[in-house]
């Protein structure tokens, strides 16, 4: 186990994300919130990472910047050799459209679209997507295809958000608390789906969670605290989600 960030060779093949000195400051009037204070970190091809940390430690901020949803205040994020921090608006849009599968912490479903349509809204613009029905089946929602978000429980809404992320067969999966609203049994179903995508397709995956038990399914566990990476732990072996209980 390492206590400092791992500094792999900067031009290493097989590195998906290379994060260097990443900072993020939110300015709200006079108040400045330093959400990230210099994050250095690499994500390798095929890896499944669990990102742990207390509330407000900057997990979502880091993931958002990696997903092209937000801009950094300083430092660089390189995705497969391309520097996201220098990307144009159009390049970022294409990056989000064709590369990233994102699960939002607050689901962000479109209230006027059914479960199926909330997935197809993404698959319609992807290159080689799954059928929306198949994606929903992976998260156990085959029975709820034509329900509107307001007719679904919080957990069900969250599962649509996950189906939506994996449905486009993304090149990288970024999940912000994908199991936050789920009981352990459903949580396992969802994690299995994510794990399968990672295992079978080799999609590099980052999962944010508050739940340390989930860390066992990861290749590596990144601990964030107060905007900095305080620890990166490598698991000797990944435990299948089915064996996880919380």
């Amino acid at each position: 186990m390492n206590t400092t960030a791992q500094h792999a060779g900067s031009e290493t093949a097989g590195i998906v994300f290379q994060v260097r000195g990443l900072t993020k400051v939110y300015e709200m009037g006079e108040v400045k919130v330093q959400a990230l204070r210099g994050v250095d970190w690499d994500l390798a091809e095929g890896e499944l990472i669990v990102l742990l940390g207390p509330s407000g430690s900057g997990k979502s901020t880091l993931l958002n910047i990696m997903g092209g949803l937000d801009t950094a205040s300083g430092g660089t994020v390189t995705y497969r050799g391309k520097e996201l921090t220098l990307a144009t608006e159009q390049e970022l849009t294409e990056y989000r459209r064709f590369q990233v599968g994102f699960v939002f912490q607050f689901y962000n479903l479109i209230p006027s679209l059914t479960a199926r349509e909330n997935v197809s809204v993404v698959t319609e613009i992807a290159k080689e997507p799954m059928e929306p029905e198949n994606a929903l089946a992976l998260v156990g929602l085959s029975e709820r295809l034509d329900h509107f978000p307001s007719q679904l429980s919080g957990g069900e809404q969250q599962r649509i958000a996950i189906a939506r992320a994996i449905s486009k067969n993304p090149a990288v999966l970024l999940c912000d608390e994908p199991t936050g609203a789920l009981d352990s049994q459903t949580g396992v179903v969802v994690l299995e789906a994510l794990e399968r995508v990672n295992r079978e397709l080799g999609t590099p995956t980052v999962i944010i969670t508050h739940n340390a038990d989930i860390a066992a399914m990861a290749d590596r566990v990144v601990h964030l605290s107060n905007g900095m990476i305080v620890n990166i732990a490598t698991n000797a072996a990944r435990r299948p989600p089915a064996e996880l209980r919380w």
Partner: protein
Amino acid sequence: MKSLDKKLFRDLWHMKGQALAIVLVIMSGISTFIMFLSVMDSLMLTRGRFYGEHGFADVFANCKRAPESLKERIAAIPGVALVETRVAAEVKLDIPDFSEPVTGHLVSLPDDRPPLLNTLYLREGRLPEPWRDNEVVVSEAFAEAHRFHPGSSFGAVINGRWKTLTVSGIALSPEFVLAVRPGAISPDFKRYGILWMGRKALGRAYDMEGAFNDLSLTLSPGGDAGEVIRRLDRVLDRYGGFGAYSRKDQMSHRFLSEEFKQLQQFARIFPLIFIGVAAFLLNVVISRTVATQREQIAALKAFGYTTTDVAVHFVKLVLLVVALGTIAGILLGIRLSHGLGNIYMEFYRFPYFLYVLRPGVVGLAAGITGGAAVLGTIHSVWKAVRISPAQAMRPEEPAQYRKTVAERIIPAGILSQPTRIILRNLERRPVKAFLSIAGIAMACAIMVVGEFFGDTVNYMVDIQFRRVHREDMTVTFIDATSGKALHELQGMRGVEYAEPFRTVSVRLRSANRTYRTAIRGIAKESSLYRLLDEDFRVKAMPEAGIVLTDYFSKVLGVRPGENIIVEVLEGGRPVRTVPVAGFIREYLGLMGYMDLDALNRLMREGHAISGASITVDERLQPSIYRTLVEMPRVAGAVVRKDEIRNFYDTQAESMLFFTFVATILAGVIAFGVVYNSARISLAERGRELASLRVLGYTRGEISYILLGELGLLTLLAIPLGFLFGRWLSDYVAVAIESDLFRIPIVIESATYSLAASVVVVSAAVSGLIVRHRLDHLDLVEVLKTRE
């Protein structure tokens, strides 16, 4: 983008009430736009076609009596194409079962050939036989007013001889599209008619065989009307010419032109208000809808939808609403056009109404609304996508509120908590509040303008017919006669008092500006016809000089004390320089006034009068009229009360139509603005209100928070609307003023209260609808889902 389109339709369905309100407002805007512009185009086209097909002349002239041989000389004037000579005369008519004075304008038709100019469009029957002096074709409006058909007959006094005339046919003429008795202010279909008779028969009756007293001609291409008129006047001078004039001074044509000008102004003002309000509403609704969807937009962006994709999505939504409103507006506009067209066709006797709706008009209407809507949408979307998706997806922070000015002024304890919420909300978003107020105020203003016409017409009638004219009857003589005729009138049974007047056709000239009109000579200390100054005080007629309608200061650019040149167009045709003694306030027409003796001195004609104003014993009025018909030197008589009644009769329908349209439209706008504001507030604040309900507030209390705010906005909007309405009325009045009439700005308090009522009622209706929704607010659902 299948799923996005589904979202589009569902979002639209979700806001169907709002969408409907916008559709209605757009519909109103587009329909009035189309109505005014297409009716104007149609009337232009119809007039052009009618004039063209029926050879409407370019120049007209009258004289006492000229030999037919003069025609050759006139035709030889450079610039003249076709010349037609006629015999024309004013005759007194005696219509069975109609005991009021009726005047006919009798015009000759060539016996041996169809007329070259001003040809008739025969609606019914046939032309009169050339040799028959008892057959006439009558104008359609007159025939309709008296239910004449071919075969009907009535009495006429032709050159002093009583005759029975039989209607052979009913016709229309480009010359008399609007038949207005000279000196009258509105057409009177019952009391003024045009009659056509064969030239020989009419010539014989008036001792005009081989002679004419009426002439019309067309100009050859490039012909200069001014030059032709000058030459024509010289030719006709010896024969008692009254001064030639071009189309623009021809009665019927002038009224039409004024009406077109008025329509054009309306077409400029009203639709712009509507389209403006519609665009504003769309803009508000869209920007607020986009704002409520800000997280969805962020999510779409996060999935990789481009800003353009998102913009296109909302533009589609907006265009759908605009398209619905536009189509409905076009259809309604076409219907309204026919309504308005029919009203005009009652006045303006065209043989047909050629309806045209130029694609350009539709395009412009659709373009303005569509353009405003699209721009507004793009602006809102741009605002929404400017922030990074990560930021936009975070729940919005609680808005910043603070204590309001009102709360600081009004002691605590008086304002309830809900009232404080209302005040804080208004103060927090002053722009939004102001825009809502402005929208509602517009509705109020439209009502005021719609009603204003009625008020102003009442006022004009009061001034003109009650304060200026005070006689019961005006009697005119065939020619200027000696003062003896007055004694004759005074001696009649039932005539209480008679006062002479003289009218003289003149051309007034100042520098290079001229105006063809008449001077009325008024007896000293006249009590039946009074001049009113700018403040409506009775003005004494100065001994010398001419008093002019105030609008002359604009038309001729003269000021009191300056001299103008008076070219008399009759009698010895003297040309004199006369000082302007002052101005009087008059809303209808343009006239000059002089002391009767001074006018007679100017004419060098001793004591002559052209008519008299009389007061009569009302019970004897019919018998007085009988006697007048039989008096050879009396050309006609007009009863003041009839004139007023007729004025209202002819104006009422179009006024009602405008008021009706204005009321509906104002209601729609008020409803649209209030309803939309309420619904958007509901969407934005549903959670807050539901939370309050959960905390134990009653339905009434939360309704008060939302609707009380709107009520307050409506109340604030009304006085502003009065102000707007007043400005708009001012603008309209100035825009349509002409030498035919000027519109005084008179707005009755009844108009203001009606405008306020329409706005309040529309607001209340939309409030009730929203209240219904509030009562059915699903607390659980509102709290569970995040918008």
